[in-house]
Every structure is written in structure tokens, then in C-alpha cells.
């Protein structure tokens, strides 16, 4: 206290300014700390609450998911001899292509690939056909119980005849894991 009393006016002004700056900075950091922590905690609380609500909602869907799982167990094909399976798949695809007047060239069969949740066995083709033909061919290839995925498809419109398409297709059938 005596130290302050012995100060002249300029020293007191300087001391006041310093004190104000320190108080303002301290408040700034405290407010920033409070707001950022509050935001993080509030977000965490909201997210966890949403997760809890989602889990509670799952309870009402328990039967649905059990049925779906049973359906997959029942319908998902099991891979036996991969060469036979590959040949059968190629023949089936060629038949569908023929039905929709789509020309398939350069078939390149793949080997079975073990992936999490399924085994993928694919074949690659170059396809040519009309818009409608290619579309209907693809439409027939896929279906809920066919377990067929189009893993790579590059479709290009023929610049000279825009009714014709050229496509490079990788058609893959998914089997149940062993």
C-alpha cells in the first residue's frame, strides 16, 4: 500500500493500465477457456444423448434386424468349387447379355477374394450395346437375392452414334464367408 502511496501520478497511471491489461487478458483467457470447454462438453453430451436415443430406437427394430440376418444366412450363396462357380457365373451373364442384345467381349475371370463379411468372385467384360440394352442387362444382373455387385463400370457414349454405349464391367458375385 505504501509502495502505491509513494508513486507519482505517471507511475500510478502506468500501474493502473498494467493492472487493467492483466485483468482484461486474464478474463479473456478465462472466458475463452469456459466457452470452449462448455462447447466441447455440450456437444459431447448431445452426441452421447443421440447415441442413447438411437440405441433405444434399436430396441424397436430388434425383430427386423434378426429377420434380415436370418434372411442373409438363408439366401446368401455358399462358394463351392470356385472354377465351377466362375464358369456358371460367366455363362449366366452371357445368357442375360444375349437376351438384351448386348455384346460381351474379352471375358477375364477373377479369383475368389476373401473380404470381411463375404467372398467375392468376379469377371471382367467389355460390353457394347444400345442404351436400353445395356440398362436392361444391368437391371437383370442385380437383384436382392442375386448377390451380384457391379464393382467397376465405365460407360462411355459413342460420339459417332449416341444411341450406342461402350462399357467396361467388373461383375462380382458375393458368397457367404467360410
Amino acid at each position, binding site marked *: 500500500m505504501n509502495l502505491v502511496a509513494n508513486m507519482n501520478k505517471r507511475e500510478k497511471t502506468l500501474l493502473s493500465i498494467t493492472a487493467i491489461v492483466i485483468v482484461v487478458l486474464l478474463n479473456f483467457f478465462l472466458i475463452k477457456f469456459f466457452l470452449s470447454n462448455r462447447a466441447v462438453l455440450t456437444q459431447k453430451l448431445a452426441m*452421447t444423448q443421440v447415441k442413447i436415443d438411437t440405441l433405444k430406437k434399436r430396441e424397436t427394430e430388434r425383430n427386423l434386424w434378426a429377420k*434380415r440376418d436370418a434372411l442373409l444366412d438363408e439366401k446368401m450363396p455358399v462358394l463351392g468349387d470356385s472354377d465351377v462357380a466362375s464358369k456358371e457365373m460367366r455363362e449366366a451373364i452371357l445368357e442375360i447379355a444375349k437376351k438384351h442384345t448386348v455384346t460381351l467381349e474379352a471375358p477375364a475371370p477373377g479369383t475368389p477374394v476373401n473380404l470381411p463379411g463375404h467372398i467375392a468372385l468376379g469377371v471382367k467384360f467389355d460390353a457394347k450395346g444400345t442404351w436400353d440394352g445395356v440398362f436392361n442387362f444391368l437391371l437383370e444382373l442385380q437383384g436382392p437375392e442375386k448377390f451380384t455387385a457391379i464393382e467397376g463400370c465405365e460407360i*462411355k457414349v459413342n460420339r459417332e452414334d449416341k444411341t450406342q454405349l461402350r462399357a467396361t464391367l467388373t461383375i462380382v458375385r458375393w458368397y457367404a464367408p467360410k
Partner: protein
Amino acid sequence: MKQNGVTPALLGPDAHGWRVSVGGAAEQSAPTLGEAIAALPANADVELALPCQSVLIERHKLPSTDRTELADMLQLQLEKTLPYPLEDVSHGFEILSQGENESTVITFAASRAQLDTLCAPMREKGRVPVRITLQALRVAASCPDTGTILALWPEQGQTACAIVSDGKLAWAQPIPGLGPDAVLGELPGLLLSAELQGVPADFSEIRISEEAGDLADGLVQHFGIPVEKLGALPRAKAALDLLPPAWQAELRSRARGDTLRQNLLVAGVIWLVLIAGAFGYLAWLKNRVQSVEREHNAMKPRYAGIEKQMARWESLAPVIEPKRYITEVLHRLISAIPEDKSMFFTSFSFGPREWVAKGEGTTDARFALVTKLKADKELDGFELYTPPEQPLKDDKVTFTVTGKPK
């Protein structure tokens, strides 16, 4: 008696030193002013009553009844009569009586140098009196409002003698010494000189302090009127304040400082409460988050089976969810082409993790296509990305639309 947290204290001379009275409590004596100050609480507002010997007291008859005019006239009068320059003196006056065009006033003047010396022990301790008055004025305030009273009391080795007329201090002088011989020897001469100055001297009563009790017999013999005891001295009724302006400024500054300190203290307390509240709120929020997380963790095992079934379904979605089929995506893209056919697709690539459609057309057509695709509920399983268009000739652009499973 405290007022706004401040204790009023009176500090006046006694027979051999100083007497302190704090908040109306019993008086305490101290040999020096320094010791008297030490007896005061830190928050006391001190009114200092000076002894007669420290103040020059004069009576004046002036040709005015206006207080402002009287103050100006006294300024001139005091410049002539005082032994110090007027700027080195703290002075004040009281109007004793007023006629039609004239007033009788009593002036009080104290040398600032003398006040500095007298109050040095007080100011060294950072204390400034809130008011400086005269002990004789306190004595006058204790006397009745009618009649002429002669009052005697000891002040720091001298005897103060005052004439109080109708409750106002009309005259006061110190008499060197304390004993009856010293006082009764000097008193007649002093009273005669007072009478010559026009001070009423037909006393209705004599009052002496308890310490001056040995004067009582001599006074009764000399004046032939009863001698009463002076009671407890109240505050001076007169508005006189001999506090130098610089001290007043110091006092104001001190008061401002005290107010500022108090306000800062209150602000500090409020700030601390707010900070504590804010941290308390954060602690509560954290606790709540932990409690909700515990609840979530406790629930998770019950739903682990469903989560696994959902994950399996999701991983097989490209082959079992019609919305994820290439034909469905193509159908949605073709359906979104504007009716005016102002655009067309040039290429389309499709994979389980992404599909990309490229096209050409007008900016409006591209905008219409993208808007329609984004609004398409059948594509809500995909997150759509539309990077900026690339300009071509004839106001046309090439564009890309990418869809990624959510």
C-alpha cells in the same frame, strides 16, 4: 455509533494532552497527539478540536449583513491584523449578532504551518481529520442558548477562558497556568479588555470543567454567582472548519480511494463468484457427460447383437439394397435430365464406394440437374459432390456429379 461503516471520533485538548472520544464511548486521555491517534480505530472519521492557544480569535463589527460581503470584508480585515500572510492561514467566522446594517462577527484563524506541525503525527500515520474546529466552540455548544456564561477549562497546561452569549462563543482567550492564583490573577484584566471590545460581561452563570474544580471557590468569591460543572462536550454547533484546502483535497482523494477500493473489492468478489459459478457449471456439465457416457456404455452390450447385424447388412448393401444398384443410380440420373435436353451425359463410372457421372450442357441445365438430384429421395443414401463446372464454347460447360454412399 457507526454511520456507513465509519465511526465518528472527537479529538480535543485536555489538561495535559489530548482526549479521544470514539463513537460516543468513554473518553480516553493521551499525553501526545500521536498516542491519541493510536487509540483511534482505522475507520474513524476524526473531528479535531484545537486548543485556544493554537487559534487567533478576534471580534469585528462590520457594516454589512450579507454573509458573502462579510467574508470579503473579513478577508481585507484579516490581511491587516494577522501576523501571517492570509494564504498561509486557515480561517473562518461566525456571526454573533446583526443590526439593521451591521454585524458583529467572531473570526478564527490558525496558521497552516502551526496546523502542519500540530497534526504531523496524525498525517504521518496517513490520517487526516475530517474537520478542524475549536474546543471553545464545543464548550459553547454545551452551554444553554440563553444568558451569558463564563466558561473555564484547562487546555494543555493553560486555562482557556470563554464567554458564551446566547449559546454562541462570543470571546475566548487562554490564560497561562492552571492554578487558582494564576487564573484569578489574570481573569479580571482579560474580562475588562473583553468588555471594552463589546463582549457582554454580566454573567448569568459560570461553568468550569471537572479538572478546573479548584477554581470554583475563588470564582464564587469574585463574581458572587453560582459555579456549575461543564458537562460532556458535544460536537461544535458552529459550522467553522479550519481544515486547510490541501488537506480537504487529500481527504477527498482518500475518500475516492476508499470508495474505489470498496468498489474494486465488491467487483472482485462478484468476479470470483462468477468464476466459481462458471467452473462449478463446467464441473457439473462434465459430471453429467460422464454420467450419460456411463449410461451409454452400460447400454451398448445389450445392443451389440443388433449393431453387428446392421453392420453386416450395411457391408452387403451394394448387392441387397436396390437403391445402391447401378441401374437405380442410372435411372435417377436420366430422370433428372431437364426436359429441354440442354445437357447430356458423356461418361459414367460406378463402383461400390463411388459413382461419377460426367456431362455437358448449359449452366442452367447443370443447375437444374444438380438441384433435382439433391432433392431426389431415392438418392438419399448417397452424399453428392458437385465440383465447379468447366466452361466450354457456346456458353456450355462440362460438369461432374459424384455420389458416395453415406
